[in-house]
């Protein structure tokens, strides 16, 4: 069985993009390959320019958002995007865009952040995930 962690990233809020980046880093640290499938709001968060500007947080915790943002700034926590870039530099991390979402939004790969490796269909992602040991949904 490949030593692999697969992740479906559906959410586009910063509070969910952090765990995606941190889990990817942890998996790389433990010598695992990581496959990330970006769909819906998760893919929206990877449109060109979005990783650097998106500050959306889960509305259920809206009252906590400013405090968390402030704390992260004070403590110099790197952005989720920088963490993901670092994980990608250090190990095998592949970032895939959901073909269906791209079609739906009328986007092309060139509209997306360069961290994205390719555009894949759900079938390909699922059949790859099937071979791995861990699959997460965020």
């Amino acid at each position, binding site marked *: 069985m490949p030593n692999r962690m697969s992740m479906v990233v559906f959410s586009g809020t910063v509070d969910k993009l952090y765990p995606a980046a*941190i889990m990817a*880093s*942890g998996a790389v*640290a*433990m*010598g695992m390959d990581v496959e990330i499938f970006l769909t819906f709001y998760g893919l929206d968060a990877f449109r060109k320019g979005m990783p650097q500007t998106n500050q959306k947080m889960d509305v259920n915790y809206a009252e906590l958002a400013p405090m968390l943002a402030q704390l992260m700034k004070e*403590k*110099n*926590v*790197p952005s989720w995007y920088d963490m993901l870039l*670092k*994980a990608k530099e*250090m190990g095998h991390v592949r970032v895939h865009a959901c073909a269906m979402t791209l079609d739906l939004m009328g986007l092309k790969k060139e509209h997306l952040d360069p961290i994205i490796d390719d555009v894949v269909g759900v079938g390909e992602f699922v059949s790859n995930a099937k071979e791995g040991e861990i699959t997460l949904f965020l």
Partner: protein
Amino acid sequence: MAVSTEERIILDARGSFCPGPLMELIRGIKQATVGETIEVWSSDQGSRKDIPFWVQKAGHELIGMFEGPDYARFVVRKRR
């Protein structure tokens, strides 16, 4: 930040959050040569479990873990 002394490489990852210090150590080990000693400083709680676990799994040697009031020092020898 890396400071190279005669006998060991020091990686100061204080103030960096999980999994930052571990990532610094992995990067440092990659760049070091077999037999070299690397010391990583971490103020992150997770490191106390993560670093020894990774060192064992990756086949290196944890020479020591020294707890201070504000941070811990992990001394690791690259074995392969």
